[in-house]
Every structure is written in C-alpha cells, then in structure tokens.
C-alpha cells in the first residue's frame, strides 16, 4: 500500500518536471531578443522591450526579435535579415520567430514571420502590423513602434490562420451594436404590437376583377454614362516591398517591408 503511494508520487513528480521543462525550453534558451546595433533605443527602453518580447514569446512559442542597423551599404534589408536569422536560429536552436528589422540609414523596415509564424503572421497580417507602426516609425518613436509590433503581432497570431484579424465582423463593438439594435427593434416591435396588430393588407379589400391598368407607357428618354478608374489596392505611406521569401540558409518566411 505504502509502496504504491510512493510510486504514484514519483510518477507525478516526473510528470511535473517534464511539463516544467517543456514549458521553459522555448524561452529559456533565448536570452536576447533586441539587437539594437544602430543604437536607437536607450537602456531602459531595451530592458522594457525585452520583458514584453519575452512574455509574448512564451505565449506563442515564437520569439519576437528586433534588429536595427545603420548601414548605407545594405541595399536589400530582406537579405540582411535573412542572414541574421539563419545565424540566430542555429545559435539559439529556435525556428519560430517574428523578426522586425530596420536600417536607419536607408530608412527600410521589414517584418518577417519564420517557422509557425509564417502562417500565424502571414503577409496580410504583416501588412496590417506595418500599417499600424509606420506613423510611429516616421516620427522616430522606435520604442513605441517596437512595443506595438509585439502586442499587435501577438494579438493577430491568436486568430485562425488566413482570417483577417481587423475584419469588422470580428469587432466586439459591432457585435454589441448589432445586439443592442436587434433587442431594441424586437422589444420595440413587441411594444408597438402589444395593443393588437393591424392585419389588413393592401389586398384585403382589393377587387381583382375591376382593378386594372388601362394604359401603360415606358418611354426611353436619355442615358448618362459615368466612368471611373478601378480603384487600386492602396498601401500605407512609403512604398511597400517584399512579401516573404527564402533565406540564404533555406528558411522560408512570410513578410513585408516599407520605406519610412
């Protein structure tokens, strides 16, 4: 009897250890997520960003990484960040990541999703994130832009893949508005009809046999034609480029970039 209890306890302990280890592996291996080579952030901003990034990285099993450089020689930020990530992935043994890279010299910013993030943060969602952070980037408010990159991407990644997370049909305020309007309409209708409903219709007293059209005219008069261009899908400020690809090391990713 006692032996059995001990065995159970032991099994339970082992189980906990495994769960614990499993939960930590993802984040424990990574101790740096912000690579501010261009020195755009101060100490406390970096520390704060590391905390937020770590928190959301753990939540999704996907690391949120930031890379800033200041190098006029770098023409293609996509290649540069690809090389950076190939090295980083090998070093940290982690393939799932969201990487925001920017070159302050060429004013390029590029957001990429690797591994599982390639689907959970697809091109469309990358564009939505860029739309939101671009005003802050243009203002030079990089700390806030990075912070928003983490929270917004993390938020979008909760949605089912392929769904537009900014779709109006998924907005709580719309649900609330429809619910209130519907309830108001139904109760208003009930109140209006509480004293009895009018059930006569235009046909109640209608005499089929003696109501008829005796003369009818439908004369074409003139026509007007108006033309307009098929609207182009507009992208936010600064030309967009990219749209995912494959790194030199063979890692495919979703992504998108802008000038800011």
């Amino acid at each position: 009897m006692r032996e059995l209890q001990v065995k159970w306890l032991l099994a339970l302990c082992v189980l906990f250890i495994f769960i614990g280890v499993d939960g930590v592996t993802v984040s424990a291996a990574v101790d740096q997520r912000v690579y501010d080579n261009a020195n755009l952030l101060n100490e406390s901003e970096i520390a704060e960003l590391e905390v937020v990034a770590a928190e959301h990285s753990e939540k999704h099993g996907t690391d949120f990484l930031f890379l800033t450089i200041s190098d006029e020689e770098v023409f293609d930020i996509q290649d540069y960040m690809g090389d950076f990530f190939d090295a980083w992935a090998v070093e940290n043994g982690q393939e799932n990541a969201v990487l925001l890279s920017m070159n302050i010299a060429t004013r390029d910013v590029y957001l990429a999703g690797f591994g599982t993030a390639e689907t959970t943060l697809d091109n469309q969602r990358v564009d939505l994130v860029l739309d939101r952070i671009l005003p802050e980037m243009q203002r030079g408010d990089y700390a806030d832009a990075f912070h928003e990159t983490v929270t917004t991407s993390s938020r979008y990644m909760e949605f089912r893949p392929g769904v537009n997370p900014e779709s109006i049909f998924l907005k709580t305020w719309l649900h609330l508005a429809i619910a209130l309007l519907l309830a108001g309409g139904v109760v208003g209708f009930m109140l209006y009809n509480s004293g009895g409903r009018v059930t006569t219709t235009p046909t109640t007293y209608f005499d089929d046999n003696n109501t008829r059209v005796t003369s009818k005219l439908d004369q074409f008069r003139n026509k007007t034609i108006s033309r307009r261009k098929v609207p182009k899908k507009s992208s936010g400020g600064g030309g967009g480029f990219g749209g995912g690809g494959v790194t030199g090391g063979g890692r495919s990713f979703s992504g998108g970039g802008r000038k800011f």
Partner: protein
Amino acid sequence: MVIQYKCPNCGADMSFDSESGHLSCPSCGRQDDIETFPEDNILRKFDPGEAKEYHCENCGAIILTEAETTATHCSFCGAAVLLADRLTGDLAPAKVIPFTISKEEAVAAFRKWTKNGRLTPRGFTSGDRIKKMTGMYVPFWLYDIDGKADVAALATRVRSYTRGDTIYTETDFYDVRREMDLSYLKVPADASEKMDDELMDKLEPYNYQELKDFRMPYLSGYLAEKYDYDDEALFSRVESKIVPYIDSYIGSTISGYSTVSYTNKQIQANKKNVYYTLFPVWMVYYDFENKEHTFAMNGQTGKVVGKPPISLFKVAAWFTGIAASAFAVMKVISFAVGGVFW
C-alpha cells in the same frame, strides 16, 4: 316599437345563439330558424309615448336606453328587446355579420390572450379580473369604391460594367405613365362616436363570407347601436384609409427600375355602394390595479385589441435577454470563424 321574440313552446324570450346561428330559447332549448320564425310569435308593441320611453312587454318596466341603442335587455327581467323604430327606414341596416363567438368562448379567448401578454405585468396575465363582457353590434359603413389613377414618373435603370481598368455606370432614364381603374370592395369605417376609431380599425379584417342580409333576430340578446355618422361624413376617413393601398398598387405596376420618382399622381375615388352594416364586437372591461382597461374582441374571429398595461421589468428583461443572447451567438460565430472571442 319594441320587438321581442317569444318561444312558440313556452313563451320565454328567445335570443340569438352564436353557435347554431338560430334563435334559441333559454328555458326549453327550442331552436328556430331566423328566416322562418313564425310571425305570430314576434311580439310588436307600439308605445304611444315612443321616442321618449319604451316599455318591456313582460314586466312593463321602462327600458333604459341611450339615444343610439337599438338592441338591449330589460334591466328588470332581462328579456332581450329590440327597438324596432331605430332599425327601420333610414336606420335599417343592410348587412350584418352575426356573432360566431359565444360569451364563454370570448372569455376563454380573452384569458388566453392575457396569458400570452409577454410585456404585461404578472398580475395582469392571470386573466381573472374580467369585470364585464358585453356583446355588441357596432355600426359600420362598408364602401364599394370605384376610382381612377393617373400617374407619371421618371424612372431609371442603372447598370455597371467594367472594361479594362474603367468602371462604367450607365443610367437609362424612362418616362413612365400609368392609367388605371381601381376598385375596392366593402372597406369598413366605424360609424359610432363612442368607439375608438383606431381600436375598431385594428379589429379588422372580418370574414365577409359570413356577411348576411340584415334580420332583426340576429340582434336579440345583444346590445346594438345605430350610427352616429352617416356615409357622407365618413367617406373622407375611408379615403385616407385606402390611399396607402392604392399607392402600393401603383408601385406594383411600375417594376424593373432602379429608382422611380413620381412627377404627377392623380387619384380619384368615388363611392359606388355603401352598406350600413353591423359588426359583432365583444367589449371587455377589465380591472387591474384600480384602473379599468377596455379591450375589444372581434366577435367573429376572436382577435383582441386594446392597450394592456406594460411591465417595465419585463421590457427590460426581454431587452437584456435578446441583446445578451444575440451577443453570445455572434461571439460564438466569430470564435468559430476567427478563433478569438475578444
């Protein structure tokens, strides 16, 4: 002149039975067809002091009436009496729809209606506070209306198509003209001053299949009144009632366009025939929280109308319930689609 229908068997006062459509005797149960009721048993009594007061043939008591009353009960012996001179000549109804709902059925139907009141206070829905129910023939004018309409409109047909990178929107304009003959049959308007017009309108429609040529015995046992307004006085009310019907018919004759805007609309409506008609109505007087509420029930179809008291609590509960469940449903759907609740 006072008219009473005496039972050929036992001499009791007979009254109209809504179930069989016959005259029926409350004491011996005899039923007589209205068309063939023996002339001998119709008691007609001419009062010399008529126009001032009528007397009951049974007990001699003065029958208390208002100036409009045409059928009532003797308030002493309860006999059903008709005041015939108020139902003859110009005042003779042309048609009548007899009661098909008896008092018991009316009470049951009214109870059921109060129980279904989703916004009425709990105490009201228990439905056992009926103070009085009165079966009453309400005077109506039914109008057969002949008319003509002549309308002109400017209508458009809009279509869009894309060639290359240009969207073309083509709007074709048409001159539309319609002339039509209009006919509406037996449109009712209540001719009693006492009755609320809106309430009476809501009691419609009646089933005209059971519209009968008027016979006095139909009124026996009920209250009845004569009209306060003649057919000329009420015609404008009927006109305003059918104008929306005519508009809807005109609309139905102009179809296939994106927009229609009328430039000229002339409607002419004339009355072709009028029928002075009595419609059966159960008036229900109901006590609730020290106030008397009046309801009316269509004596042929059982439809109930009237303003019931409203419980704010129930209104709020329905509102909250509907809003909350609609919100929950939408949240479940958005979770199923988007994978996220908030």
